[in-house]
């Protein structure tokens, strides 16, 4: 079963351990955080549960169709109050419980001062690609 672990720049429940911006951490804390993320992904490759991960740049916009022959309408950049996704990791695991367990581990990445960031991550199941049992 595939699950998407979503990291947000903002949005979601209130942070339990609010972090200063990363450029205000010590360089060692920045390194430890980056290394933790890399090790986490490498471990999931080892266990055969890693599918893909990508990070999203913070800029962007909303776009919609505005009628035949007219250019699309844009609304953005994203308002400060809006939810903003920072990146995702796609995993393929045995169960929902395992997906939650892994998201919990990812949220334990060290933050400023070395303590876990305890940031909220969103876990979303993907629809299955299999059609078994639908007939």
């Amino acid at each position, binding site marked *: 079963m595939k699950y998407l672990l979503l990291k947000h720049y903002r949005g979601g429940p209130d942070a339990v351990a609010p972090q200063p911006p*990363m*450029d*205000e*951490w010590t*360089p060692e804390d*920045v390194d430890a955080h*980056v290394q933790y993320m890399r090790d986490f992904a490498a471990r999931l490759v080892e266990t055969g549960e890693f599918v893909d991960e990508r*990070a999203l740049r913070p800029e962007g916009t909303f776009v919609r169709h505005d009628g035949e022959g007219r250019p699309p309408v844009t609304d953005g950049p994203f308002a400060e109050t809006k939810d903003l996704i920072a990146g995702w990791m796609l995993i393929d695991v045995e169960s929902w419980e395992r997906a939650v367990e892994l998201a919990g581990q990812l949220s334990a990445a060290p933050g400023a001062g070395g303590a876990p960031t305890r940031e909220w991550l969103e876990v979303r199941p993907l629809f299955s690609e299999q059609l078994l049992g639908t007939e």
Partner: protein
Amino acid sequence: MNEGLLRELVPTVIGILVRRGADFASAEDAVQEALIRALATWPDDPPRDPKAWLVAAAWHKFLDAVRAETSRRGREVAVDAEPPPGPAPSTDDTLRLYFLCAHPTLPPASAVALTLRAVGGLTTRQIAAAHLVPEATMAQRISRAKRRIAGQPLDQPGDLPTVLRVLYLVFNEGYGGDVDLAAEAIRLTRQLVTLTDEPEVAGLLALMLLHHARRESRTGPGGRLVPLGSQDRSLWDTGLIAEGVAILQAALARDRLGEYQAQAAIAALHADAARASETDWVQIVEWYDELLPLTGDSPVVRLNRAVAVGEADGPQAGLAALDGVDPSLPRYAAVTAYLYERAGELSRAAGLYADAARAATSVPERDHLTREAARVRQQLRGS
């Protein structure tokens, strides 16, 4: 089986099929199919004459495709099973493939893909993996590119600057999947040097070799990006540097300077310094002054020149050299941050490094710039 040898045969065999009367698109498809079969069967059953095997297999694939097409259209098979002898293939065939695959009408991503397949002899699967797109998408990109250049004469001189741009693009794509694209770009540029007599081709090869020589030192523990000034120079590949410098010197001696030769000259001056502090920045600025008009006053070159000016004449001069450069350029904030840090304006530098991290276009670059901001802020707290 030597996969490298097999891949080197690909452009030659495409040339042979075209000389026997196949159109480029069909010939290229047929050779790709023969290549995939060779990769599957040669390890257990290596042919005595690899080239003859590949020509025969590709010609049969081509005939199969023609028969399928004619029967689909309900017409007679028009092609003989025995290939007409045709004129002997020449090295010019391969050169023409470079021009065709990097045709100026093709979007860069398509030219890259087509060059890697028809000239580089990579499979669609390898090219797709290297670019993180599905194989079917890459197959379509290549088919559309071939349709776009259908009807282009194969015997016209092509546009060499476009070919060089495409090869440099491939080089900068670095690693992807199981293919080392930087090494592949070097191989293709080496081959192009033997097919042409243009100092700029040699200049590009020298530039690639000099950059490639530093590859080991460019990333630190955990994949961290290490900037030129902090690299462990004992990791630099002195053999590649010596080769790059020799190729560059021979090219420069011909007195037809171009942008790749000028860029290679700058890379050579960096390679020449045993320690970062021994870098000859004055000469590097002179080369940037040569490079600027060759690139039509490129803003990116102007930005890099400002860094060199900052090293040669001090950070204030570097900041002054940024005058008139578009601040929305990628890396503009990073360059100003560096110059302000050198000027001792740490608080301003930290803010600019943080801005630069937000504007970064890759994750390693973002992480590096975040760390730079953190480092300067730590210095500020300590002082």
